[in-house]
């Protein structure tokens, strides 16, 4: 039940990333703390959110560029890693990042289909509702299909695959910190 509540919460907060407000409530670092509190695993939730945050700061939403959706990436990773029968973090993190990329593709297609609107008020409402619905549906499908698949498939993964992912996850905070340094470096 908590997982489905989390899906709705993420879908609501995702509206903040582009469609409404942009108060940074949708950022992975905030989402991680919120979902960590919800599932009573604050440290894990925040750590995973912080990782996705660092990995998503490189891509800037300038002009018409649509970057990978950081909210979906963090949301999916957190849904996989938190709650009952969780997926190991070393698998949840890349699966979440891949979800963010997949959603970006869907989002770009949705934006292409939108055109001129007769009534701005109606269009604004339609934009918000359709975005909420599509995000909730995407995450619901991830929870219903991808999460069990990861849980079932993980014990069957070859040792070198799980070791490789564990190794990368250990170094991920350093990679993220380095990218943060490069992003902020003046000049």
């Amino acid at each position, binding site marked *: 039940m908590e997982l489905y509540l989390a899906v709705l919460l993420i879908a609501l907060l995702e509206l903040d990333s582009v469609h409404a407000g942009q108060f*940074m409530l949708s950022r992975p670092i905030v989402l991680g703390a919120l979902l*960590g509190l919800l599932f009573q695993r604050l440290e894990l939730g925040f750590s995973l959110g*912080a990782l996705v945050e660092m990995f998503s700061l490189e891509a800037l939403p300038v002009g018409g560029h649509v970057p990978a959706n950081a909210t979906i990436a963090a949301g999916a990773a957190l849904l996989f890693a938190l709650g009952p029968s969780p997926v190991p973090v070393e698998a949840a993190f890349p699966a979440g990042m891949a979800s963010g990329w997949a959603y970006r593709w869907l989002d770009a297609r949705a934006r292409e289909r939108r055109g001129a609107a007769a009534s701005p008020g109606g269009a604004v409402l339609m*934009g918000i509702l359709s975005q909420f619905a599509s995000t909730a549906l995407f995450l619901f499908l991830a929870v219903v299909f991808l999460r069990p698949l990861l849980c079932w498939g993980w014990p069957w993964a070859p040792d070198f695959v799980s*070791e490789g992912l564990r190794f990368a996850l250990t170094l991920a905070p*350093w990679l993220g*910190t380095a990218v943060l340094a490069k992003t902020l470096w003046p000049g």
Partner: protein
Amino acid sequence: MDIKMRWRLFLRSLLLQSYWNFETMQGVGFSYSIEPWLKACFGKTPDQYLQARARHQECFNTQPYMAGFILGMVCALEEDAARAPETDRLARIDKMKALKKGAACALAGIGDALFWATLRPFCAALALVSALALWRVSERAAVIAAAVYLISYNAPSLYLRWRGIGLGYLWKEQIGLKLKAFPWQSWIQGLRWAGVFFVFTLAALLLGATGGDFNGLPVGAVVFAATALLKPRSFSISRLYLIVCLAGAGASAAGLQ
């Protein structure tokens, strides 16, 4: 423009990107934002109101936090156009459209550099340092870090979004000259240097927390230094992560781990 109208414009401007599309971009959102003002200016002439609303649905895109300046400016110019004689109105509208387009591009450049490329990563670095520094002291370090992130980001951005509407209305065509007087580059450089300080503090805290992460060797710190110095900007971190995964998998398969 009274305070009630300014609030209405401000709240509506928060939905500027709610119907973002590749054809008109923020056009629909801008038209929605300025609707109350256009009703006030052209409410007695429905045809002119609809024309005004339609012209603001055209293609428009700028950094969303800087859009307030353009919103204010356009409000002032639409007000002038509404009061102008019929013979003068079209010329004023054409001038307004050109100013709107020019301001959108200029403000997008400033806003992208200030908010997306500087303030957002700066706030992330600050929040992460707060979290790591408070981890052993408070159970709610993560919540405090998230609050630090939100407050440090929203304080300047909300102020600019609100203030921009008033300043744009006041400055009108002078907006370009007035904005040039702001020390944008100094602010950006200052924030960046502060951000770099926090990033190195973060790296030091991370080293203290993880120490020798591989058989006593600070491999993470070496990876940090190598990535910071050698990674080209065009090479994404996701690709780098994938390479590290493959390297780890390869080492494991070869019996090195």
